[in-house]
């Protein structure tokens, strides 16, 4: 896509973050529903979703539309407004209800796995986005400004330790925040390293690795340990740590057509191993789903751990 496209996307993301702490115009309570009736208790350790599981289906819907119709004269904003619903002073993007329910279910499942492992933690009064997308797009100045704001948000709430639930948030908080936020000393851990599941509910699946977990964060072996009871089908190239293919997600909002082709390549590879595929990242999930057209069934890791 052209520079104008990225420029407009940037404006939407920066503006939305400024107004609502979320990267797109979304219902403010979109990422809060899963907390209903859960023990939120005050704690310096928090379970933090960065809203990723709830935002991913919104991106999926928007990207589908962008891909179909391309950029109009009115640009990205008009295109997104066309898939959103009218709201005071603009529009709101809304994921399908079924996807919101699935996202709620996944995050609640992670909550349960952690509680069962005896981990003590609280919940934020409101989820905010980590800013990962800005960094990944290469919009480093905007990212740095936002990261300082987000770090302040955590600090004000006395957060000393963050438990993340997806690779993008883990990566940006663990590896990138310390480079851009002076004095950022919050400990950042992944739920994967804390849970003690008692098995796996499906068998003979292929694992689609998140590039960030496998090659940036050293979680490749841990993921295999957690999923071993389900006898995953491995292949030295297709599911190898160094060579496993990306889902195309990092460029889905800038080059949706290329992203989809990459996802298709990945689905074809995985389908050679199994029709059942376990993913660890909400972005991988929506990208592979968009390209799969029923060729593989996708499960999120937290959905299959017992």
């Amino acid at each position, binding site marked *: *896509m052209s*520079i104008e496209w*990225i*420029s407009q996307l*940037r404006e939407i993301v920066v503006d939305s973050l400024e107004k609502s702490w979320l990267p797109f115009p979304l219902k403010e309570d979109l990422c809060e529903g899963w907390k209903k009736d859960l023990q939120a208790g005050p704690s310096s350790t928090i379970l933090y979703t960065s809203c990723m599981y709830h935002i991913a289906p919104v991106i999926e819907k928007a990207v589908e539309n962008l891909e179909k119709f391309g950029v109009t004269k009115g640009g990205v904003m008009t295109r997104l407004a066309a898939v959103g619903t009218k709201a005071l002073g603009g529009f709101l993007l809304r994921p399908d209800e079924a996807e919101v329910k699935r996202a709620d279910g996944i995050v609640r499942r992670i909550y349960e796995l952690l509680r069962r492992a005896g981990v003590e933690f609280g919940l934020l009064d409101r989820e905010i986005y980590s800013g990962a997308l800005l960094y*990944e*797009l*290469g*919009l*480093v*100045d905007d990212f740095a400004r936002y990261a300082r704001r987000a770090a302040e948000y955590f600090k004000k709430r006395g957060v000393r330790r963050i438990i993340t639930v997806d690779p993008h948030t883990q990566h940006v908080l663990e590896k990138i925040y310390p480079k851009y936020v002076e004095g950022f000393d919050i400990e950042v851990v992944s739920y994967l390293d804390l849970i003690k599941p008692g098995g796996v509910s499906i068998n003979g699946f292929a694992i689609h690795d998140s*590039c960030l977990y496998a*090659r*940036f964060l050293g979680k490749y072996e841990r993921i295999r340990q957690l999923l071993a009871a389900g006898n995953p089908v491995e292949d030295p190239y297709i599911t190898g740590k*160094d*060579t*496993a*293919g*990306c889902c*195309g*997600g*990092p*460029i889905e909002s*800038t*080059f949706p057509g*290329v992203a989809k*082709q*990459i996802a*298709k*390549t*990945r689905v074809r590879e995985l389908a050679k191993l199994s029709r059942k595929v376990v993913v660890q990242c909400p972005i991988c999930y929506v990208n592979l789903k968009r390209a799969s057209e029923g060729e593989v069934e996708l499960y999120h890791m937290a959905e299959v751990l017992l």
Partner: protein
Amino acid sequence: MSLAELRAEASKCQFCGFCEYACPTYKTMRMRHFGPRGRINLIKNFDGELSEAAYIGIMTCLVCRACDVQCPAGIKIAEVIHDFKAYILEGKIYKNKR
């Protein structure tokens, strides 16, 4: 990394092409500017201008690091491309905004 550092890192490239073996965008698009070798050499030879094709090649990198481990010269390919993207956007987007 600064532009000079990016160029220095990219200059280590020996054109062997080992990095293309696992690159998802290269595997899918089958054109050199959609692969790590092409991207690294676009950065190495950057003189202030990028053609539309070169721009798309750079911007479609997934920063997935499948190339890094294959490179015998030890170039931090994914990081170089990510930081070069940031450099390009810095020039094209931010300069107009401030």
